[in-house]
Every structure is written in C-alpha cells, then in structure tokens.
C-alpha cells in the first residue's frame, strides 16, 4: 500500500515544484468536412469541432479534481487546413474564413488554442498550400486562438526553399499586422522540419493525416521537479546525476500516462501518445535553464551547455519511455526564450545568443523558440535563420522548428511583453551579414544521402 512519504513527495511536486499536466490536446480529423462550397465547409467544420470537443474542458477539470493535479490547458488540433480548404478556397480571404470558424469553435468549447491552420510543404507547395501560407498574416491578425504551422522540410524530402523564402516575408507581414500587440501573431506561427503528426503542444500542434478520427494526446511538464531533485545530488558524478533525472522523468511521465488514459476513457476517444517534453513556463522555478544551472553552469549558454542539455534530454527520454508505452510528439526539452525565466536572465546577462541556441537545438527538440529579434530584420535574414534550423533537423533526422518574432519598432536592448504563458523577452541581436543571394536562388535542397535507406 502507498506510504505517507510517497504521498508527501507527490503532493510536494504538485504544490511546490509546479508539477502539472501541461495540456490535454484533442486531435480531430476534419477530412470528412471537405466540401467545394465554402459556406457549407465552414458549417461542417464548426459542427464537427463543437460536437467532438464539447466535453473536453469539463473532462479535463474532472480529472484535475479527481487526482489533485492541475491540468493547465485543454486544446484542440485539427487536420492541416490547407488540405481541408483545397477544394473550396480560391483566395487568401477564403482561407481566412476557415480561420475565423476555427476561432469561433474554440471559443464555443472553451479551449485557449486551436492548432492546425497548417500546410505540409516539405517538397513543394500546391496552389492551396501557397494560398493558405499567404493568408497566415491576416488569419492570425483576425483571430485570437488559432495557431498556425508550416512544415517546410523533412529528412526524406529535403527542404522546400521556395516556402522558406516565402515564410521570411510571411513572418514579417504577420509582425507588421499585429505590431500594436507586440507582434503576437508571430508567437502563434511555427515553421517545422520533420513535424510530428501527434504533437500536443502549441503553437505547432496539428492532427496529421496519418491519425484516426479523433485522438487524445497529452503533454506533461515538470522542469521544477527535475531541478528540485537535482538539488539533492549537487557535486555528485554524472552517473548519479543521470540516474536522478531518469527516475524523476519516470514519475512525471506516469502522471501524464494516467491522465491520458483517464481522459481517453471518459471521452471515449482513443489515447494517442504522451509527449515527454520538459516544457517551462515563465513562473519562477519552472525553468529548463535553471536545470542547466543546477547541473553546473553559471548561466544557460555558458560552455558546456550543449553537453548538459544533451544529457538532460536523453535521460528524460530514458525515464519517460519506461513510463508510457506510447511516447510521441516532440518529446524533448523545450528551450523557448520568452517562456523561461532562466533563459531570459541568461540573455540579459549576455550569456546566451541565437547562435548558441541554434547549437543547443542539435541535441534537443525543438528549435529556435519564442525569440524576439529587431523589427527591422530583413525577410531574407529570417529565411536564412529558418533554413539553418531546417538543415539541422533534416540532417539529424529530428524535428526542428523556428518560432521567431520580429518586433516592429523595437531593437536590441528593448523588451517585449506577450503576457501569460508566452512570457516576456529581451530583443536579441541577429547576425547582420546578408544571405540574399542564397535565399533568392529558389527551388529545393535535396534530401541528404542517409535518407536513402531502402
């Protein structure tokens, strides 16, 4: 039988160390909503989402009470809208109407984000893919809860450099349209390489075409718990360090697995995966950077950071896969800047640069995340940053992503406030040398040699 110390340990994790279930994400296929008539399509999409997800929020709240563990977000992901709208949408405005429908449906069922305003263009863009991508700035400007993502590359296909070039422009346009809200639109737009079909985390969640009608995916969290556990092994060797991370990750993931199964049972929707990612929030003591500091670095970004992060990421996975039979999504340590107090401090202290963050993304998911850059950064420079990050994903057969925010009217030394879970960030300097000629070539980068495994 459970003993008192175990009960106290679990409740301490929840009450003092910010252990929570970060998100229950309900994936919904919209493939059966496809219709050449735009009005009818919108109607079907609205009805499908509001009927399948009607109990999502109340189920989440019920589980939260039953186990006494906070379930921070309940969210929805849908089939990439570029596919759903292909038959009905003949202009960017047509696509924006679907974004508004998604927004309305999300409000109706009470979820704070809905993901899947997406296009998968890892080899090339179809006409509707391109229309959707061009509609992203208006869609994100005119909606509140819609999140967008574009997959522009994969290990199997290479990188679609035409899409990369276009997205440099799109990100700037999104920043421009939402400049009165500190470019918040860009915080809801992710560019991916090797995007997973079952990621529960926003802004990059979408319900992939390989998925069933509906699925429950759960993202756990708990950087604070890992940090606290590591405080007890200060000065010990790497074996002890790794063992501690692994055991803690096991415990955290088991909670995610329990919540996922319970939600699946209550909603009669199949359970998909648990995402093991350590996801920080701006709250004090809920930071991945603080774990790196606890491992022995003065600040995240100091020499040794990439090695420490590699070790952390690996141990989290080793503990996590033992705890759940279905691990998926992104499953790695997140290193967003604005959402992590320790990362913000590292940037402000001058310890952490975009280049170091890029190196860190080689050993962990997910990528350059929530990084504010000067508003006068050129579109081609943004495309260059995206291309670099996509290349890391493509060659290393892993997911990488870019969620970068050019803040119009602000420059290095300024700060930007997004609020809530998105946090705040100092504007980071960007390499000023040109990559115009490289980005303007057009076409695609071929798949790497090690993708030919057949």
């Amino acid at each position, binding site marked *: 039988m*459970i003993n008192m110390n175990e*009960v106290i*340990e*679990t409740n301490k994790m929840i009450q003092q160390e910010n252990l929570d279930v970060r998100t229950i994400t309900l994936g919904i296929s919209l493939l059966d909503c496809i219709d050449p008539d735009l009005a009818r399509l919108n109607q079907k999409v609205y009805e499908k989402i509001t009927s399948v997800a009607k109990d999502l929020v109340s189920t989440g709240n019920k589980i939260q009470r*039953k186990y006494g563990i906070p379930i921070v977000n309940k969210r929805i992901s849908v089939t990439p809208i570029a596919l759903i709208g292909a038959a009905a949408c003949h202009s960017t405005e047509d696509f924006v109407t679907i974004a508004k429908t998604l927004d309305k449906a999300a409000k109706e069922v009470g979820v704070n984000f809905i993901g899947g305003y997406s296009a998968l263009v890892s080899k090339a863009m179809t006409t509707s893919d391109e229309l959707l991508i061009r509609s992203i700035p208006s869609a994100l400007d005119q909606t509140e809860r819609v999140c967008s993502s574009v997959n522009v590359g994969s290990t199997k296909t290479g990188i679609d450099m035409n899409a990369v070039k276009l997205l440099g422009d799109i990100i700037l346009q999104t920043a421009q349209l939402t400049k009165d809200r500190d470019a918040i639109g860009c915080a809801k737009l992710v560019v991916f390489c090797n995007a997973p079909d079952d990621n529960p985390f926003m802004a990059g969640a979408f319900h992939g075409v390989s998925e069933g009608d509906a699925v429950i995916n759960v993202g756990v969290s708990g950087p604070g718990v890992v940090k606290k556990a590591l405080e007890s092994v200060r000065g010990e060797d790497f074996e002890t360090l790794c063992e501690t991370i692994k055991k803690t990750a096991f415990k955290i993931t*088991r909670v995610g697995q329990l919540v996922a199964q319970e939600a699946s049972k209550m909603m009669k929707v199949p359970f998909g995966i648990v995402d093991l990612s350590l996801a920080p929030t701006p709250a004090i003591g809920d930071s991945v950077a603080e774990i790196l500091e606890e491992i022995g670095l003065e600040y995240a970004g100091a020499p040794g950071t990439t090695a420490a992060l590699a070790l952390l990421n690996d141990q989290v996975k080793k503990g996590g896969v033992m705890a759940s039979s279905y691990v998926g999504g992104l499953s790695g340590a997140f290193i967003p800047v604005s959402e992590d107090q320790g990362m913000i401090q590292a940037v402000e202290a001058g310890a952490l640069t975009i280049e170091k963050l890029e190196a860190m993304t080689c050993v962990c998911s997910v990528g350059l995340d929530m990084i504010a850059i000067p508003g006068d950064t050129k579109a081609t420079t943004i495309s260059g940053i995206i291309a670099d990050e996509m290349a890391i994903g493509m060659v290393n057969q892993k997911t990488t992503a870019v969620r970068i925010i050019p803040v119009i009217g602000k420059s290095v030394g300024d700060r930007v406030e997004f609020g809530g879970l998105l946090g705040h960030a100092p504007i980071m300097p960007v390499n000023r040398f040109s990559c115009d000629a490289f980005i303007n070539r057009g076409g695609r980068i071929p798949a790497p040699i090690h993708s030919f495994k057949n």
Partner: protein
Amino acid sequence: MVLVMNRTVITVVGKDKVGIIAKVCTYLAENNINILDISQTIVQGFFNMMMIVDATEAPKEFDQIIEELDQIGSQIGVRIRAQHEDIFDKMHRI
C-alpha cells in the same frame, strides 16, 4: 466476484488542535466511506495525517466528497485534500 475498490488518499495538514481526526472520521462514517489505513504524525506542532479510504459504497459523487472535505478543512483551519489513489500508485510503483 471481485469488487472494484475505489480507493482514495486523504491528506490533512495544518496546525494541531483538538478534534481534527474526530471531525474527518465523522464525515467519512456519515457517508459510508470505509477507512483502510491511517498514519499520523505531529512535526513541530504541525498535524500531518494520511488516510487511505474506500469510497465505493459512498452515496455521493467523488467531486462532492472532495468539495465537502475541503469545506470541513476550512472550518477547522486545516488543509484537507482527497485524491484518487491511482496518482500515487502510478508514480511510485512499476
């Protein structure tokens, strides 16, 4: 037939005073909730109790029991939490 047990862990934490256990146990008895295990300590004047109970035969919804225990806690100045046993079991047992 094996009866599926609906086991719940109740934790009570707060400043020690007369009648904490009596109050909680009275509530449990009134609601047909069976106590399977109790452990209790006092550390530096702080009352710390854990109970494992079986609420299978309780006439009320689990949500309501949590709510009412929480209210009793507020009345006597301690924090009472009720959580389904599974969260501890999953976390600490393979």
